[in-house]
């Protein structure tokens, strides 16, 4: 019973096929093109920077979810990586705020 639960909790699933990988790569290429295009447009610094961060976040999530298989692998791996990432973001935002970078 416990074993069955463990398999469900930490279960790996089949990885997606090559067609999905190619579609994800095309989306990543388009997002990169939009990012570079935004660099040369003038929507105002805050809007442009916000859009650039959202696009980078989207690319990050697509690579981690599909190419690194976090979407299909165990939840334990997702939590392990997310804890390192979130800890890094929080620690360094706090560090930079302490030094007055965002003020």
């Amino acid at each position: 019973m416990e074993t069955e639960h463990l398999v469900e909790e930490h279960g790996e699933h089949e990885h997606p096929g090559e067609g999905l990988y190619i579609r994800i790569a095309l989306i990543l290429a388009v997002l990169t093109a939009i990012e570079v295009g935004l660099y040369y447009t003038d929507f105002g610094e805050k809007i442009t920077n916000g859009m650039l961060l959202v696009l980078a976040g989207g690319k990050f999530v697509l690579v981690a979810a599909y190419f690194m298989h976090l979407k299909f692998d165990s939840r334990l791996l997702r939590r392990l990586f997310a804890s390192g990432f979130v800890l890094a973001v929080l620690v360094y935002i706090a560090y930079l705020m302490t030094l007055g970078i965002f003020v």
Partner: protein
Amino acid sequence: MSADAAVDHGHGHVTNTGMSNEKLAMWTFLGSECLLFGALISTYFLYRHGDYEGVLPKDLYDIPYTSVSSFVLLMSSLTMVLALAAIQRGDGRRLRVWLLATAFLGASFIAGQVYEFTSFIREGMTIKTNPAASAFYTLTGFHGVHVTLGIVMLLSLWNLSIRGKLNKERSEVVEIAGLYWHFVDVVWIVIFTVIYLIP
């Protein structure tokens, strides 16, 4: 957790977590790498707008050139995942083709970085010019070292495959190397945006 809870998870591993310890170790390592690159990116943020003598990195960025480099590294993630799909099908020949393609794209990225560093030095920005330049070279240089180590891993896998020591049953070895490669790619996604594109 009882010993009964240990499960075999498809690659011949019997562990309490239900997955191989090697894969778990790689993910733990990648989580810790977030802290390393977080420190390097934060340091660059701290120094990038300082009132220093000499040329600042942001004055020298060549965005079209770096965009092409970024695209090359992004596409290497596709070839890497295609290599994994090939070995999971038991197709050794395609595995080797995609591994070499990934290594080639990675080497192209590194060649681009060497060219970028050389041109920056010619423009008068060395690692000693000012704290912003030091932080820039340290961040992008560390990333370049990671890519170079990834290329060594890929060529080692190619060599193992040529010698018949990498088959479908050992596909997890390629998956773990792939995790490292994709991580290097996602780090560059962040660096490209927050260092190069956001002035």
